[in-house]
Structure formats: C-alpha cells, structure tokens
C-alpha cells in the first residue's frame, strides 16, 4: 500500500499519515508507506524495492487518476517481477483532494477509496495479455494540409498510406487562401508542391471524391469501406487535357472552390492545380443526366475517358492506424442577419475575400464590390462573427485564427490599394504566436489600419453604400462608418461530417464536434480510442504552422504503432465459465465486435463428460466492454480485471 503526496496536490487536503495508518488495518496489507512524488523515478524505485523486500503479491497506489499513471506503476511492478495487473490505483487526487477543500472530509474519503482499491486487489488475479498483429498501412481521412503532411511523414518513413478526400481534389481550405500570415507568402506556392509530392509518392494512394462508409476492427487491424463516388470519368484513361470542360454547355453551377463567387461547368476540375488533374461530372448539373441529351464531353474526349454509366465503387481495405484530418468550414454568417450577409451583396466572408484577392480568383485578383463591380473606397472588417458566443448564439470558443488573418487582409488591402480606408472592429486582438503581434503592429503602424475596439450592431444599406453602426468602446461612443465592402471574420466550425465519422471510429467528440484528444496536454494528437490519431483543425481551431506541427506529431504517433510487429492487447477481456454456460447465445447478440461464437465442446462437469454448446471468446477481438457479462442469465460470463466479485467488493468497501 503506497500513498503519494503529489507535492501539496494531495497532501494539501488529505492527511497522508491517516490514510497510511488506516490502510495497515485492512485485510491483506503487509506494508504501507508514503512518498512525495510516487510517479517520479525515486517513487518508482521505491515501488520496486517494496515489492522485492516484502515479497508483495499486489500493490495499491493511492495517487492521481489511473488514466494518468496506471501504466507507470504497472511497469514498475513488472520490473520487480510482479504481474502488472496486480496493481490497483485509488484515485485520491482528481476524485478527492482536488474536488474537496476540507481536510477532514478529504481524508475520510481518501481512506474509503483506498479501502475499495484494496478490496478489489485482494480479488485480483495475474492477467496475461494476448498479442495481435499490425497491418502496416495507415488511413488518413481528409486531404487538406493536415492530411497531406501526415501522409507524407508516414510515407517517408517507409509505410503505405491512403488518403481519403471527399472533394475531387486534395488541398483543402488552404488551397483557397491567397496569402498566409505572418510571412505573407502565397498559399498555393507552398501548398501545391506538397500536393504533387503526395500524388507522386510511391507509398501514397489518393482516393479523392471518396468517403469513408464503414469502419470496424481495432488498433492494428481496422477494416474500412471506402466509397469512391462516381466521377463519370475513367481516371486511368483521362489525360487531363480539359477539352471536355471547354465544350460543356452547362455553366451555371456555383464553384465551391471560389465560394460561390464564380460559376463552373457541370464537368470541372475545382482549380487549375487540382490533384489529381481529373475532371468530375456534377450529376445535378449535367444536361446528359438531367435531360438525357448532350454528351458533348464524351464526343470530344479523345482517350474515351467519359463514362456516364460509372457507379460508386466500394473499396475494402485494412489498416493498422487511422488518422482523422477532416479540417473545418467557416461558419455561415447568415444567422447574424444584423450584418446583412446574403441580403447585402457587399457583405462577404473572409474566405470569399481570399478568393477576391487571389490572382486566380473570380476577379483575377482585383478587389471589386459585388454589387456594382466598382473599386471600394472604404472597407470594414468585423471580427468574432459567431465566435465567443453563448452556445445558442454561435460558437463558445475563440476561433483563434481570425485576428491574424484579418490583420493580414487589412494589410494586403492597404498594400495593394493605399487609397482604400480600412477599419477593423474587434473585441480583443489575440496574437499569441511567433512574430504574430509584430505582424499585427505592422498592420497598424506601417499600413495605417484603423482598429476600433467594439462590436458592430447593424449594417444598413444607405444611398448605395453600407453604413456600419458599431461601438467605439475606448471613446464610449456609437460610431458610424460608411463602407463599400464589409468582411466578416466568421468562426471556425467543425465539418458536418466530423461527428458521424467520430461515431464510426468510436472516437469521442467534444460538444463542438471537434475530436477529443486523449489528454489535453500530454496526449494532444491521440484520440482516446487506440489507433486513432488527430491531425489539424478537426481537433480544434489552429493556424497553418500549428496544423503542420500537429500533423507531423500525429504521423509520429501512428508510426509508433506501424513500426511494431505485434501489439500487446488488453487482458481485461470477457471469458465464460463453461460449466455455467447454458448456450443461450444472449451474449453473442449483444457483443458489438462479434467476438463471441458458439461451439460444441466437451465439458468435464464434475466428472461427467458431456458435449455442450458453449460460448467462446476471440481474445484478439474482444475489447472488454462487459456487455455480455450483464446480459448472461446464468452468470457464466465474467470480465477479467472487472469481475463481478471485484466490483461487488468495491461496493461493499464503499458502503461499509
């Protein structure tokens, strides 16, 4: 029995000595002591020494959450020759000292938690984990900068990677950007080489215009169904000449890549540098699909790549690890009607602004008003549109990137058009990042951007211009700015597809539909579900450098699994008592993994040899949820490490 102080974290509200002394009176306890930091090297050495010196058959560590250091102490026990599953943790930090202030109350509870752990340990038996193989291939879901970076890093280490991207090209949101902060280099210039690298890498396979339909299995052995949507083009034959696009008469579809600011054809590639450079037929727009007539593209295609009969194809593949890199969408500001987005054509979003400033954009890089095509004289930027709001009014978090990209936009406008007045309405300017505040100061000092502290209440159309009605909180006054263009810095929002994907992966999601990390500080790129890793904005708002850093980190964690030949499984799995099993197959029905099968077995029932139909567990597949144990009407099924008797003992100890 070992009690940790955790400095003053535990010792502050729990009287360590009382816990140690109380533990000595518990059945089976032969040795009890305490230490300031049990998880430190000294503490672990003490654990090993105690086991050896007192020939302990099990240890209870009263310390922080088992989610934190259970593995640490199991390893220490194993080093001393004890079965690592003869270790129990009493969580007297997160569940006790940190949530109670009164020392007497805290101590009393710590004693009870310690007792419950001892009661459980007394019923523990040594457990031996099974092993399972690792499929040496990774799946990256999402082909933006995050997914591309993760895939390149894994592929460069010598493992196969597949990227599944739902749109017809990889590149993601970054491909839509004009310039990037804080260096102002052009997004395409730094992204497109990476896109090409990914496409040409012999270890990377791209599945664009594809989605993940189904995921099953577990770490090391996932099997995934990928739906490759019908492009209506035979990618192998297509030479990317573009004649089909040229001839297509249906030109009224909104270009997704240009945020609807320009039109595209029914057969299209999203943008010139798209990877792969293979067009897609938009069946909702194509005249052949709508009316049965046309087929011009088919006629002009020399390699005969057009195939109107093409169907969605399901590809089944197996993977050792899966990396989510689903990215984000900017929130639609339409619900904030006071800004008039959707009603007033000169009110646009930041991403639309990127397209308007881009040389390859709908205006060829000329910043023009949407209403009349004239050059604006005054532009207003509004920050925090949909961010930092109550949950029913928007997103409760800070979207993190808007302050910086708004400063970038303001700077780019003033750089290109020094005669345009630029104002920015802000609540706070948040610039934590290398060279970030310097960047923002440049916008103010060098480029003369007018920053106004206060939010905007309404945008009204007045005599052909936009009257922006805001607050200037420093002056404590209402302020009216006449503008020709208003740019809304809209919140970062998780992709709508993120939550259904999270459910498929059994990865937990937070209330904002971002993927939850396993530990906010220490395991930031791992999902709590083994073998699932997180790359980029799907885990929370991030800028490009952070996304790339996290993408690399996710790759390293994934490689940690791919480089192993065998994975040590979890020994806490279900197992039937064959003598009690009555063959009803209730457990088989509830098992979410199909780990239970029934077989005829010869049973020695107290000397009678009979053949019975009994449950069998596939140890490599069982994940240890325990659904079968409670379902079993005869009490034959039990869960190792969490047996009925162990849990009952804990209940008894708590209620004593």
């Amino acid at each position, binding site marked *: 029995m070992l009690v940790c102080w955790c400095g003053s974290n535990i010792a502050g509200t729990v009287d360590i000595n009382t816990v140690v002394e109380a533990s000595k009176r518990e059945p089976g306890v032969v040795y009890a002591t305490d230490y300031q930091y049990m998880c430190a090297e000294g503490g672990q050495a003490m654990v090993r020494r105690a086991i050896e010196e007192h020939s302990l058959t099990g240890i209870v560590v009263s310390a922080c959450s088992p989610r934190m250091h259970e593995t640490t102490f199991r390893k220490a026990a194993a080093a001393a020759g004890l079965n690592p599953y003869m270790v129990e943790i009493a969580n007297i930090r997160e569940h006790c000292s940190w949530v109670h202030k009164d020392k007497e109350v805290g101590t009393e509870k710590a004693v009870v938690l310690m007792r419950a752990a001892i009661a459980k340990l007394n019923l523990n038996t040594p457990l031996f984990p099974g092993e399972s193989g690792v499929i040496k291939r990774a799946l990256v879901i999402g082909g933006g900068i995050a997914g591309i970076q993760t895939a390149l890093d894994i592929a460069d280490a010598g493992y196969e990677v597949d990227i599944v991207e739902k749109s017809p090209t990889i590149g993601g949101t970054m491909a839509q950007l004009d310039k990037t902060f804080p260096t102002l280099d052009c997004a395409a210039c730094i992204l497109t080489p990476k896109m090409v690298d990914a496409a040409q890498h012999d270890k990377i396979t791209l599945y664009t215009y594809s989605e993940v339909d189904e995921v099953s299995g577990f770490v090391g052995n996932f099997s995934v169904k990928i739906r490759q949507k019908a492009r209506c083009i035979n990618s192998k034959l297509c030479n990317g000449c573009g004649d089909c696009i040229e001839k297509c008469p249906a030109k009224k579809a909104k270009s997704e890549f240009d945020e609807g600011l320009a039109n595209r054809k029914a057969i299209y590639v999203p943008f010139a540098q798209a990877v792969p450079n293979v067009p897609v037929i938009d069946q909702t727009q194509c005249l052949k699909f709508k009316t049965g007539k046309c087929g011009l593209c088919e006629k002009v295609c020399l390699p005969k790549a057009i195939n109107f009969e093409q169907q969605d194809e399901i590809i089944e593949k197996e993977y050792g690890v899966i990396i989510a890199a689903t990215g984000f969408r900017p929130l639609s500001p339409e619900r904030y009607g006071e800004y008039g987005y959707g009603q007033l054509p000169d009110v646009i979003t930041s991403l639309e602004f990127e397209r308007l400033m881009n040389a390859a954009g709908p205006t060829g890089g000329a910043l023009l008003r949407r209403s009349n095509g004239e050059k604006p004289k005054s532009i207003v930027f509004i920050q925090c549109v949909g961010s*930092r709001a109550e949950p029913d009014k928007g997103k409760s978090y800070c979207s993190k990137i808007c302050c910086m990209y708004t400063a970038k936009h303001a700077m780019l406008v003033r750089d290109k058009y020094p005669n345009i007045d630029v104002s920015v309405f802000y609540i706070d300017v948040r610039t934590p990042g290398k060279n970030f505040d310097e960047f923002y100061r440049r916008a103010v000092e060098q480029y003369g951007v007018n920053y106004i502290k206060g939010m905007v209440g309404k945008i009204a159309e007045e005599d052909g211009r936009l009257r922006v009605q805001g607050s200037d909180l420093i002056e404590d006054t209402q302020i009216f700015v006449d503008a020709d263009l208003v740019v809304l810095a809209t919140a970062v929002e998780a992709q709508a597809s993120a939550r259904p994907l999270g459910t498929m992966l059994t990865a937990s999601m937070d209330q904002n539909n971002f993927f939850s990390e396993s530990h906010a500080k220490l395991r930031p790129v791992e999902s709590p579900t083994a073998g699932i890793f997180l790359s980029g904005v799907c885990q929370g708002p991030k800028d490009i450098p952070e996304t790339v850093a996290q993408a690399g980190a996710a790759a390293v964690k994934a490689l940690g699994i791919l480089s192993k030949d065998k994975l040590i499984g979890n020994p806490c799995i279900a197992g039937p008592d064959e003598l009690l099993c009555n063959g009803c197959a209730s457990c088989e029905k509830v098992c979410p993994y199909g780990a239970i099968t029934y077989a005829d077995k010869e049973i020695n029932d107290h000397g009678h040899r009979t053949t019975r139909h009994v449950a069998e567990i596939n140890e490599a597949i069982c994940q240890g949820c325990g659904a079968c144990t409670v379902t079993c009407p005869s009490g034959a099924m039990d869960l190792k490490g969490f047996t009925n008797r162990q849990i009952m003992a804990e209940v008894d100890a708590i209620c004593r």
Partner: protein
Amino acid sequence: MLVDEKGMQEEVIRMSGTEPKKCMLCGKCSATCPPSMDMDVRPHRFVKNVKAGNIEALMESESLWKCLSCFACVERCPRGVEPASLVEAVRLLVIRQQGKNYLTADDIPELIASDEEIPQQLIVSAFRKYSK
C-alpha cells in the same frame, strides 16, 4: 426599501432574470441601441455597472427613461445578456419607491390636449413604463 447595494444588485438580477457576469464587454448592445447616444450610461456600461453593483448610480441615470424596450440589444447580444431587462429592473426599483413615479395621472390631460392624434396605446404604455 432596499438599503444596501448588494441587496439591490441581487434584486435587479432576480427581477430581470439576466446575468450580467456573462457580458464580455464587446459593446454590441451599445452599437445596436437606437437611442444609444441619448443615454448617459450606454447599454454596455449599464450592464457593467449592474455587475459592479453600482445600482444607486444607475437609479439616477437618464438611460432609464431613454430605453425604448425594442429588444434589439437582447436579440443581438452574443452572450445571452439582456441589457433591456436590466434597465427595466432598475427602472422598477425607482418607480416602486413612493413618490418616484416618472409620469403621474395628473400629467395625462395636458399631454392629451397637446396632440389629438395620440393613441391610447401610447398613454397606456408610457404609463406602464414610467409609473407604479
């Protein structure tokens, strides 16, 4: 009669059913408010003062009689604060005191005489807002 400011602050929060601590001082209410510039204590500062417990100062404020109860601030606040409800609660603290009615029945005949077109609705609503 409420004497201490803490008690008055609690009373205002209870009556209005709105929590000024949620305010992040973005100023959107004051940006939105039509009579914003006619107020001595503009909506965001009104909220801030309730949060700080300066209720007596607010009871002296002209803003109490300028608020139109148009709920634009309520509708647009990103934090779910209701500045208009706080104004109404402080206004009620004032007019619920004896002799503190902002408008009395005696004022009415003269007002009506001044303009024949005044609809009943105006008199009733002003009376409801300004008197107890």
